[in-house]
């Protein structure tokens, strides 16, 4: 199973601690919080897709999958051809104009090697960002949804929607 950062955007308060933490770790923030006029805020980073288009089109093998399942990145092999950016449906890989290579989230390889959480997850004050085995996180979410459904029924609420 692979480890991912799961985003529970309803918990997010748009404080941008993740952005600053990423910037302090990597020099440039690889995660960005998008804010909407209705105060919805969504932090968004590389999804580390299971069938990652960027990885498949990378001509030099600079992008590779590491032992935790992250789409990681070898800067020495990158030629800055932008193919990964073309293939990515989310627009995640960005060009580092100083070094003429691409730059993207690698789930903080160095921190993971030391047994630490990625910087953005370490910081997130609301736990809107969660790091772990993805299906375990999803089981947790399903479980909490069902328990609320039950509670709502016990309270006699008719339409237990909006529960996430």
């Amino acid at each position, binding site marked *: 199973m692979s480890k991912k950062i799961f985003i529970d955007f309803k918990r997010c308060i748009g*404080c941008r601690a993740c952005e600053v933490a990423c910037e*302090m770790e990597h020099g440039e923030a690889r995660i960005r919080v998008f804010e909407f006029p209705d105060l919805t*805020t969504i932090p968004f980073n590389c999804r580390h897709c299971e069938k990652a288009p960027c990885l498949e089109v990378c001509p030099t093998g600079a992008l590779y999958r590491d032992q935790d399942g992250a789409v990681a990145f070898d800067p020495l092999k990158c030629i800055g051809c932008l193919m990964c950016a073309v293939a990515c449906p989310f627009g995640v890989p960005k060009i580092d104009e100083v070094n003429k290579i691409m730059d993207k989230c690698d789930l903080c390889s160095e921190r993971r090697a030391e047994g630490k959480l990625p910087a953005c997850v370490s910081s*997130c*004050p609301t736990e809107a960002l969660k790091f772990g085995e993805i299906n375990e996180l999803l089981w947790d979410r399903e479980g909490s949804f069902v328990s609320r459904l039950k509670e709502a029924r016990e309270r006699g609420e008719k339409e237990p929607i909006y529960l996430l």
Partner: protein
Amino acid sequence: MEELVPVVCPWCSVGCRLYIVSVNGHPRKIEWDYDHPNTPNKGKLCPKGVASYQFTISPDRLKKPLIKRNGKFEEVSWEEAIRYVAQKFKEIIEEHGPEALAFLGSERCSLEDNYVLQKLARALGTNNVEFAGRLCQSSNFVARSKVFGSPAQTNPFEDIVKSKVILVWGYNPAETNPVLFGQYFEKALDNGAKIIVVDPIKTKTAKFADIHLQPYPGTDLAVALAMLNYIIKNELYDRKFVEERTDNFEELAKSVEEYTPEWAEKVSEVPAGMIKRAAELLATGGNATIVLNEGVNQHANGTMTALAIANLIAITGNIGKEGVFSGVIPGAHCGLCAAVPGVNCAQLPGPVPLNEENAKKFSELWGFEVPRKPGLHYQAIFKAMAEGKMKGIFIMGQNPARSLANSSLIEEALEKAFVVVSDIFPTETTKFADVILPAASWYEKTGTVITQNRRVMRSFKAVKPPGEAKPDWEILVMLARELGVGEYFNYSSVDDILREINRAIPALKGATPERLNSNLEGCFYPCPDEKSETPRLFLNGFPTKTGRAQLAPVKWIQPGEVPDEEYPLWLTNFRQVGHFHTGTMSMRSKSLIKRWPEGFLMINPEDAKALGIRDGDRVRVETRRGSLVVRAMVTDRIRKGVVAMPWHWGVNFLTKDDAIDEFSKMPELKAVTCRVTKEVVE
């Protein structure tokens, strides 16, 4: 050599622990502290915390003492600067008496720094010693002291999670204290708690609200009175608690008889039905967390609103047990480190009131006569200065030229006195200084903090101070020696000072250097001995004369200004998550200023349309005191008739200094009237 130094975050008062990874005294990065699960933040940090060492390495740091000669600052040695200050202070004392001197302490400096500062002021014979707490929690401080006998936060943060109802009044924890909101408020919501928010702005906290009341700024008092009225009239209050643990219920009930929700609707424009729903939920929804902050405090009727809310807490029985939460929320990490050692014109360390008995006690402890005459409060110090009566001032880590109401008047006052500023950066205030002393910043010294949760913790020196900068207590001790009172200031380390504090303040007796240095999670104040601490207050009674909560009658007081034809809009101000107070530190943190780059004006689409203003237009905001030009943000997050600005960018040029709360001396900072016009660029 690389080391991991444990520190406490230097911004808000939640008291988050983190590590600085320090290489030979230079900060390389921060690391989250997941090793101490009982600290308030459990490892988590907000953006300010993550970026917290950036400002310490700013090239703007003050590195050498400076003396102003012929209008220019010249670098001098420490000896020369201290000798010059001491000589000037001696001249002032000889000519005008010690009461022509004032000392400002700081919520940005440690417990030890503040203790030494107030002791020096008193050794010289003046009680003119204040800090910005006067502009912060003083309203709630006065109100809660009156009702409960103590203003402190009652319960540990864990009890917020156990609450079933959360009432957030004039407070936006999602931006002011993101870690507190994420780790405790949101977890209470997970457990099914309902949240009521009172704020004219739809804040990030209001996004989570079940009931959001949007009164006009300064009229929340009406809403609070109406909630009291509704709860009492419909007998929704906690009868058992009121009978067993409170006094004066009848007087309170009588005082709110006329303030019906319908009356409050006329004053505040909050629908009466919503006030009733909120009151009902608060009174019947179960254990409640009731928190208020500057939106309530910073008004000329702030104490009365805080008093009404304290009454609400008492009659709904949400105090003195487990699973409830309320209390003051200082803005800065060391607000209580200045309040507890008596950096106050009418209090001595403890804090205890300045009276004959206490003055005698401290005279014996310190070995010099403590002056008996109360000093001047913050705003009055500057008023006296403008009148030429206050001749000299020592300002430690404060920026009154921006933090006090009606800034231009404060600037005029500063020009008339001998001003000594010890700070880490040039500020708006240092422009008016005669001597500037470079201070060590938070990570550059070891010191003790008391967080809003009454947790006493140690933060350690992680970084070398730049140039010749020194910790504030060292500067004060040098000054004391030069002024001839050195015999009372025999300290060679912060531990020496803390040991004296252990003796001077009984409630801190158990917070010894040994305990705090070895136990990073600290202990809950009061801690009368080395083994004990007090996580929950008032379980067995209140520190009042009868041991019961003293309910206090309340009445309606008009805000300092109300809109008229000339100035038709309400102007209020708020805090952004990425900035802190006057921005001295946060605006020098590159990750923060990049994301929160400038001030703006929030205006409702209807108001904007009537004034011909579109999103992004430059507008002039004008009050009776001054005007500022900012960009407009047209948004329905703010109610009609009200405009709002983040206060970090000089908003106090617009605020009102002559409407002052009669109980807490708080100026009207949050509700003034203004007019907005589109700025035409020629």
